[in-house]
């Protein structure tokens, strides 16, 4: 089980490096998809049921959709992949950074806590994730309203920033 977690986390790092090394958004999107899949897998290995699905949903259904629209609006004829020299340099730098961090931290974090995805460390009837969602809707109701207001404001802001045909940031939208 811990081997599976190690493999998934390794893939998470590979995906992160692939995104952060600044290729064209088409390829970076693939890195993000892989990251979301393995992140979901890591959370499942730690025992969660609802939270990994939320993770998957937000990554793919939220971030990826916005990413895809941005990539479609910024189309280019010769996109940079990971074989491009400048992208390869970034990949090398990030791999070096991850290697250094691994060397420094190896041995300091040990043990695999195969418990339920929970902080209390004891046996519970309801899972922590479910209780959290229920509490968020019950006690934190007004916070959800404020969060929704914030998201609505974000919609207005984005629509105002990108509209304009000839005078906006994007010429054909």
């Amino acid at each position: 089980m811990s081997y599976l977690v190690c493999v998934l986390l390794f893939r998470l790092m590979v995906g992160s490096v692939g995104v952060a090394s600044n290729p064209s958004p088409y390829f970076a999107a693939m890195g993000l998809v892989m990251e979301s899949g393995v992140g979901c897998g890591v959370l499942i290995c730690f025992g969660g049921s609802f939270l990994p699905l939320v993770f998957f949903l937000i990554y793919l259904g939220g971030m990826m959709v916005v990413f895809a629209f941005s990539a479609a609006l910024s189309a280019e004829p010769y996109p940079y992949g990971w074989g491009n020299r400048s992208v390869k340099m970034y990949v090398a730098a990030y791999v070096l950074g991850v290697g250094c961090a691994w060397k420094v931290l190896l041995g300091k974090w040990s043990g695999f806590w195969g418990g339920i995805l929970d902080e209390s460390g004891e046996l519970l009837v309801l899972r922590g994730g479910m209780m959290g969602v229920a509490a968020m809707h019950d006690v934190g109701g007004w916070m959800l309203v404020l969060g929704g207001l914030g998201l609505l404001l974000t919609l207005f802001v984005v629509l105002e920033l990108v509209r304009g045909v000839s005078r906006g940031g994007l010429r054909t939208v």
Partner: protein
Amino acid sequence: MNPYLLIVLLTSLGLGTALTLSSTHWLLAWLGLEVGTLAILPLMAQRHHPRATEAATKYFIVQATAAATLLFAAFNNAWLQGHSDIQHMSHPLFTSMITLALLLKLGLAPMHTWMPQVIQGVSLNTGLIVSTWQKIAPFILLLQIKQIHPPLLTIIGLASILIGGWGGLNQTQLRKILAYSSIAHLGWILLILQHSTALATYALLIYIFMTSATFITLKKCKATTINMLTTTWTKAPTITLVAPLMLLSLGGLPPLSGFAPKWFILQELTQLNFIPHASIAAMAALLSLSYYLRLSYSITLSLSPNNLPECLQWRVNYPISTPLSSALPAALALTLFLLPLTPSALTLII
């Protein structure tokens, strides 16, 4: 801009700051800060020319970085401590991280490099909002954090005063000068924050009045460079009379109200035996004073070459009225005449 959208954005700006001011939980404070950041972006990019779009992009990236660091440190602290109370943070690493995030939001040295570029790229009114209103929410959060590592605040405060002074010396663009002046004033506020929160609040309040008066004056004169200030006497002779006093109040000279915060900050530092801090701050204030004097010289103390028709603008365009004109008398009165009222003003804050 569409008036409905303008109302939504300005209301959200107020809502964001109100949320942060009324919060005891870090999540709500972060939410308020983010709402404020988002609401001002279309106001910044209103004119849709590349400089404004660039300024909006830089502002967004900087504020988003600061908000992300804030959220990261707040949740780490909550994990270790068990609660997300703003006023009871105890972990030193995450307290310092949150402090640095808030100082990045405020634009203090050495995280100040975005300020001149952003304020230069936007219009004078939006620059006013960024310089005054957007400082309130991070400042209130800073007030509530206890046990910040003292050398952090002192070094960043002194560095900000020095960089605000030296940075503004070589500028001819007025918005950049006001950005560096903002950095310097916030440095003074940060210097006294750990010793007396009442004085820090008073200093911020006086700074907001002085900066508002300056921005509104510049808007009325339609001046964005020092050269454009030289024709102020043709447009509004009364402003020509009062503007040097306003700028000297920014510089912190008695008997104007800008002197009161600096006076009390120096007194407090001296009483607590921080003599080097007080000396460096007082000497660095002279750097800022030199560029305020340069502006006063251009406005009032010298007569630049001009042609006859331009000398009579005040007869034709009187009175110059911008949307914020009605706020100028109040802001000017508060900038110039508040020093004798300092004892009663301080009792309101202490």
